[in-house]
């Protein structure tokens, strides 16, 4: 390929879906991916004895890629929301909220490589937060408009889900039947039913049957360490593979994009990326940025047009603003019966009962609950020894035998409403290897967010207790630590140029050949829905809209 028509920056859920939709329609696409490819068979070591000793085998370290401003002081009244373990006490000793990580994967497929596969559609009302609840902003289109693209994304990824759609009406069934719940999830389900709560199969991008040349899941429980079986519908195995197969798409790995170059007539003319030895420039007709809600605003802010220092596409002043993070909680305890809880999908069930924006008493913004034993990494002997059993000597070994497989954890994720104190800007003091300012994360949890988190924590504890757990042994959440995977909002999508960065087609209001196709465009976070499927659906929609212009 000589000169691409479209350059896509980033190959995660948004960039990959966008690239596929264009390439499939005959458009020449070049993807620039900062990280490397992952080879599932070589890189994901779940068949080795040392599998538990490493998490996702990141080839590009994430520590230090961003900086953060000081986080808020913690308050005694929320002492119940501190992270703790029964052997080690409080996990974080500081009286100030700690910065643990912005968890993302740099590589072909992006963060889908280590996601659990949750494939959620937005609650329809969670897309109308401003008009219905006077918070955040409305999405510029409704659920019905996005629904066909959800169907398409589910088909391309291979999503297994339940037949009952609930409030998320469907024009077609899931391509695959839901998975059976694990034995441990069945116990949580019994607990939910005792409390009058529902507990249904969670839609996931793990195959319940062979599909599209990939084998069905064998329930090893380690989706977050990377799937060597190739059944998990990561972006590299689905959208990227299909895009490359069209012959209309190329991907350049190790291409760390430094800046977008603004041209005349309000058009972006080129992108500059650095590799190990030199800088490269690529011109195209259209450019899509899909680096996630932290690095996308950073790239735009580092790409100021001549005569401006405000960044590119920042006429509204909102690039980097409205940053929303993952509001989460998990409680884990020891069940009196052997459960074999290391088996099964990490997040195979879900309680949507509090997902609507008005479902939590006294607080606007919803949440949801699901199993969290695998995500808490309580599925292997090493973590049992260190975090559950402790001790030493013969009593330690006896307790290991009694307790292994009995850990049961439930987690909740909730809406995170925008706050003027949460945003991304450029760090004036820290620069990367190319002498460009790093993204600096500002995060603040307002009282309403903490109240929602408190509700989530209390409900997690109730579910665990109702499921038969007598002793909680560990809890952690985002009150005392920033530890986000789902991030949103920093290039808000909307109809008005003054109050949003991109329009309903994800195109900059001014720079019409510039798009943003990741979770940066979310006007609201949703009530705990995992965002990957929505990101892909929005990207597919943006691509179809763009095809009218190409």
């Amino acid at each position: 390929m000589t000169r691409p028509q479209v350059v896509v920056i980033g190959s995660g859920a948004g960039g990959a879906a966008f690239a596929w939709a264009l390439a499939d329609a005959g458009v020449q696409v070049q993807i620039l991916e900062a990280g490397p490819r992952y080879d599932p068979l070589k890189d994901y070591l779940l068949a080795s004895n040392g599998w538990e000793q490493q998490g996702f085998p990141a080839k590009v370290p994430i520590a230090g890629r961003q900086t953060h401003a000081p986080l808020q002081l913690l308050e005694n009244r929320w002492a119940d929301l501190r992270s703790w373990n029964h052997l080690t006490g409080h996990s974080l000793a500081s009286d100030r909220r700690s910065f643990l990580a912005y968890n993302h994967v740099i590589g072909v497929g992006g963060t889908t490589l280590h996601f659990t596969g949750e494939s959620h559609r937005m609650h329809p009302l969670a897309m109308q937060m401003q008009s219905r609840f006077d918070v955040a902003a409305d999405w510029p289109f409704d659920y019905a408009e996005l629904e066909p693209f959800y169907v398409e994304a589910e088909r391309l990824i291979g999503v297994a889900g339940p037949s009952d759609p609930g409030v998320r009406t469907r024009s077609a069934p899931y391509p695959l039947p839901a998975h059976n719940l694990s034995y441990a999830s069945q116990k949580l389900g019994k607990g939910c039913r005792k409390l009058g709560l529902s507990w249904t199969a969670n839609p996931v991008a793990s195959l319940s049957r062979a599909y599209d040349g990939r084998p069905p899941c064998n329930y090893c429980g380690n989706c977050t360490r990377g799937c060597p079986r190739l059944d998990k519908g990561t972006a590299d195995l689905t959208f990227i593979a299909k895009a490359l197969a069209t012959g209309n798409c190329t991907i350049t790995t190790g291409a760390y994009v430094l800046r977008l170059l603004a041209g005349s007539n309000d058009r972006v003319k080129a992108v500059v990326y650095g590799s190990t030895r030199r800088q490269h420039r690529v011109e195209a007709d259209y450019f899509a940025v899909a680096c996630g809600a932290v690095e996308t605003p950073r790239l735009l802010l580092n790409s100021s047009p001549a005569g401006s220092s405000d960044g590119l596409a920042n006429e509204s002043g909102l690039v980097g603003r409205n940053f929303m993070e993952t509001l989460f909680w998990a409680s884990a305890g020891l069940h009196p019966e052997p459960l074999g809880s290391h088996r099964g999908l990490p997040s195979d069930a879900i309680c949507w009962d509090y997902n609507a924006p008005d479902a939590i008493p006294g607080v606007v913004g919803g949440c949801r609950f699901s199993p969290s034993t695998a995500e808490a990494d309580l599925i292997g002997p090493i973590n049992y020894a260190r975090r559950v059993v402790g001790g030493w000597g013969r009593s330690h070994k006896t307790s290991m035998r009694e307790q292994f497989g009995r850990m049961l954890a439930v987690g909740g994720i909730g809406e995170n409403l925008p706050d003027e104190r949460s945003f991304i800007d450029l760090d004036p003091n820290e620069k990367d290897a190319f002498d460009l300012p790093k993204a600096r994360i500002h995060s603040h949890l307002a009282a309403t967010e903490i109240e929602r988190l408190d509700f989530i924590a209390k409900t997690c504890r109730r579910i665990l207790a109702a499921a038969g757990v007598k002793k909680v042994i560990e809890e952690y959440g985002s009150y005392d630590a920033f530890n986000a995977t789902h991030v949103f909002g920093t290039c808000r999508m909307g109809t008005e140029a003054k109050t949003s960065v991109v329009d309903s087609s994800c195109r900059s209001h001014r720079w019409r050949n510039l798009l943003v196709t990741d979770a940066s465009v979310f006007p609201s976070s949703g009530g705990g829905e995992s965002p990957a499927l929505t990101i892909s659906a929005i990207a597919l929609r943006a691509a179809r809209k763009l095809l009218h212009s190409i």
Partner: protein
Amino acid sequence: MILIMLDKKQKRRHFLRTLVLLGSFLPAKVLLALPVEKQRQAGSLSALPAFLDTLIPEDISPSASQLNVGPDLIGRARQESGFERLLILGCTWLNEQSHKQGKQLFENLDEAARIAIVKTAEQSADRSLPRVFFKAVQYYAFEIYYAHPESWVSLGYIGPPQPVGFPDYAEPPELPRT
């Protein structure tokens, strides 16, 4: 959803902090002033296998020594000078305690005497040498020991997770044979 991560840098910082704390203890102070090679000569790790076997003794499953935890631990410590110094100091402390009981070396004590000394280490003040040594060795010994499939059998854990997975995931677990 969310992962709690403990990366290698965090572990390294932990041991660097530990080393600073140990600077105030004698004979730690004397030993720390020496290069690592000299420390290896001055101190000895001969107590380590017995210490590890006190933490993880043989019963229906193997002991730490039977699964070569000691050599693996030392190999790891040699990549991290702060950790190696901690092992040397800790083993020196174990032998000092065994001397007080009229014995020559920790590894020659009977099990009850070794247990008593390990309990002392475990119950020492938070930032004291014996406590830091105990916690660090326990932490890594568990990691190394429980990465061996031989340690999984009596737990009923049929791993690693792949290539077989857990096709029986929806059923009650089979209990391990004891």
